[in-house]
């Protein structure tokens, strides 16, 4: 009897293990949609800010702060699911894109990006730039105050910028800010920033959350974050939630919803449960599969993730050092079929390292440069001396389910031209180390996004001597075109610069630097009754525009 009991126990144990395995599935779920393949580099030098600094005075900026009318929804509350806890509450120390997109609501820089990707005045109300592009003079917004009620002074601005630039001692927090020589405050409303050399992306970098203005006299920002944004910090429970409240002294258009709770949903498989169960009202970047599981209580909004998903090829590794081989892969891959398999056809096809949110820089025609043509692909392989095909290893970060899925479809498509793609799943940290920094790979399938809406944020990495040129792209024509763009920017010839950037993109596409696929679709689940979710062309969640019906 005992023996039987033991045996039964063993079987039971085995089945329990299995059940547990299924249950544990939650832990490893597809975080793909989560915190994006954020490998854009704020320090990406020499890009263009060009026309992104637009309409200096918008109608909101003329509002007198402190008199923001109490909005109607005073009891309103929303719970928003976020994929990970915030890595820091101090803007200059924040790292993850998932953290910065939240801090966007608490802190503001002198300028900040709006939903069109333009830079609009925030803590500053205006600025002028000297002819040589070395001296920026900002005018402090009148009457603007911090969440603790203290007015923002030029000393606070000086302190914040100097901290980021490392002028108060220590390393510059933002590497591009090492270009700053001095921050001066000639009077109570003027801040003058002097640069070593002119830099067109300066304003864009100044507008990121890292460069936010913080009070000089508050030393415990980590536990007591104080900024000037539309929401102020109330409390935080580590790995659990962050509570925000509308800041009624906000200078601009006040937020609609009064209370916001950000609930950490580290387990992506619990997202559907949390939404359906009513624990959260809004979750951004869910997968198509999750969206399909949601009931009628939810509206699924569709935007784009603003990145370029591609099979990035190491242009220095055989056989990808041969342009014909790379082109053959482009002809063999059917992008639309990938979308159909992986995301129910959702997503925007791209043909070069640029996505539609960039507007004028985006060249749509490049999408059709390689229409699927297996015969042509085989012919090109034959010309390159690989008539019998070849095999290579594709490293894919395992935490991004969408990339893993895409990789499988690509591998299947390449079989048709006798090319074998062996998929190797690796951890995200390993990917950063080996592939991105070590450049030790043949092919990889990821998305690359941009930290600012400057063409350089996408294109500078493909210069042959760029430090982040992880695909080892080496094309002199490209380098020349890029220089041309920079030269045009230096003399503020925007049209010519745009032309040159477009030429860069065309070269990338024509030489098949990578097998470009898509700008993935971003799905946001919002409980019916809430409105106003706004997609940004950058990695930003703007809570102030949310409203209750």
């Amino acid at each position, binding site marked *: 009897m005992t*023996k039987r009991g033991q045996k039964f126990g063993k*079987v039971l144990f*085995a089945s329990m293990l*299995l059940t547990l395995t299924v249950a544990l599935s939650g832990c490893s779920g597809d975080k793909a949609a989560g915190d994006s393949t954020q490998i854009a580099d704020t320090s990406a030098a020499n890009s263009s800010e060009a026309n992104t600094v637009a309409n200096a005075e918008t109608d909101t900026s003329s509002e007198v702060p402190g008199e923001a009318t109490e909005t109607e929804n005073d009891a309103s509350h929303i719970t928003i699911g976020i994929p990970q806890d915030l890595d820091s509450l101090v803007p200059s120390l924040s790292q993850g894109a998932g953290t910065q997109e939240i801090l966007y609501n608490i802190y503001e820089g002198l300028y900040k990006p709006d939903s069109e990707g333009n830079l609009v005045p925030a803590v500053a109300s205006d600025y002028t730039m000297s002819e040589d592009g070395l001296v920026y003079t900002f005018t402090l917004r009148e009457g603007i105050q911090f969440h603790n009620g203290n007015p923002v002074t030029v000393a606070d601005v000086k302190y914040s910028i100097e901290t980021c630039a490392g002028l108060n001692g220590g390393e510059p927090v933002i590497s591009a800010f090492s270009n700053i020589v001095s921050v001066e405050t000639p009077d109570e409303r003027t801040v003058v920033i002097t640069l070593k050399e002119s830099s067109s992306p300066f304003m864009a970098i100044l507008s990121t959350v890292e460069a936010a203005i913080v009070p000089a006299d508050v030393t415990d920002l980590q536990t007591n974050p104080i900024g000037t944004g539309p929401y102020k910090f109330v409390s935080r429970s580590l790995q659990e939630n962050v509570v925000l409240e509308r800041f009624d002294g906000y200078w601009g258009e006040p937020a609609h919803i009064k209370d916001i709770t950000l609930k950490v949903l580290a387990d992506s*498989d619990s997202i559907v449960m949390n939404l359906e169960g009513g624990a959260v009202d809004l979750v951004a970047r869910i997968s198509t599969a999750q969206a399909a599981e949601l009931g009628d209580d939810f509206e699924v909004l569709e935007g784009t993730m603003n990145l370029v998903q591609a099979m990035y090829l190491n242009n220095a590794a055989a056989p990808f050092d041969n342009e014909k081989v790379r082109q053959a892969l482009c002809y063999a891959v059917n992008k639309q079929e990938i979308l159909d398999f992986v995301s129910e056809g959702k997503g925007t096809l791209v043909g070069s390292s640029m996505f539609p949110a960039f507007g004028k820089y985006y060249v749509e025609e490049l999408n059709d440069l390689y229409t699927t043509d297996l015969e042509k692909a085989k012919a090109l392989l034959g010309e390159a001396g690989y008539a019998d095909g070849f095999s290579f290893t594709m490293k894919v970060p395992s935490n991004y389910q969408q990339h893993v899925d895409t990789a*499988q479809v690509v591998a299947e498509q390449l079989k048709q031209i006798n090319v074998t793609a062996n998929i190797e*799943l690796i951890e995200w940290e390993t990917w950063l180390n080996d592939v991105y920094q070590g450049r030790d790979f043949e092919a990889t399938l990821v998305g690359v996004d941009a930290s600012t809406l400057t063409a350089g944020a996408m294109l500078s990495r493909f210069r042959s001597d760029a430090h982040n040129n992880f695909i080892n792209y080496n094309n002199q024509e490209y380098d020349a075109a890029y220089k041309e763009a920079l030269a045009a920017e230096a003399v503020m010839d925007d049209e010519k610069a745009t032309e040159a950037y477009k030429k860069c993109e065309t070269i990338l596409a024509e030489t098949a630097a990578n097998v470009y696929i898509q700008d993935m679709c971003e799905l946001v689940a919002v409980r019916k009754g809430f409105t106003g979710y706004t997609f940004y062309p950058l990695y930003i969640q703007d809570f102030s525009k949310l409203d209750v019906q």
Partner: protein
Amino acid sequence: MKRKKIYSPNFIIGLVITGAMLLLILIGFVHTPYDITKMDSAAKLAAPSFKHLMGCDNFGRDIFSRVLKGMGNTFVIAAATVSIGTVCGVIVGAFTGYFGGLLDEVLMRVNDVVFAFPSILLALVFVSIFGTGKYNVIGALGIAFIPSFARIVRGEFIKYREMDYVKSARLAGVGQLRMIFVHILPNAMPVLTSSIMIGFNNAVLAEAGMSYLGIGVQPPSASLGSMLSESQTYLFSAPWYALFPGLMIILMVLGLSLLADRGAK
């Protein structure tokens, strides 16, 4: 009298299940109804039907074909793992158990160290150093499985080395290697056999766990564990996707457990 009854119902059930599993695995090696990586957009998440016995996955791949191949992969990995564990474990266990002394102390402390880590954790470390993939998983799990076999065999050898028949054989001048492998090892076989079966079950589960975590069999190949992992998103919309691989794991483990129990009697 119970001793004489060779075929207990449990044993027969175990035999049938294991036999059926082996048959499926064999079929999988020779032929699958569909190419296991062939995608079909028309059959995405199709429910089980006569065309696709177990339905289709999110790429429209035939789950039955993938289960057949996946079982094969799981079986090969588990068998190779247990072989490594058994061979090394028997050698280590036999020598330490038979000779004792310093060798025993040193090897068994090393054994304890390896044993102290959960096998999955140890395998994770191994894989993070040598990379992912089928053969690395075999190596990783194989090493992790050595200590348990070594202990069992050592225990048996300690028991037998002082027995009269061993003493008399020794007096008759039997060599040490012959003594270990011809005279004592066969006596340890019953215990060893059942621990091999239990070990095989653990290896099946460990492989499933590793592939589930994405470090075993790499896509687009299939193993039961990786299929479970891929299916979790579709647990509600396509339950058959998770059900069949899961069922196969249960059946494989159940069948051998029933057999192993008989062997232990």
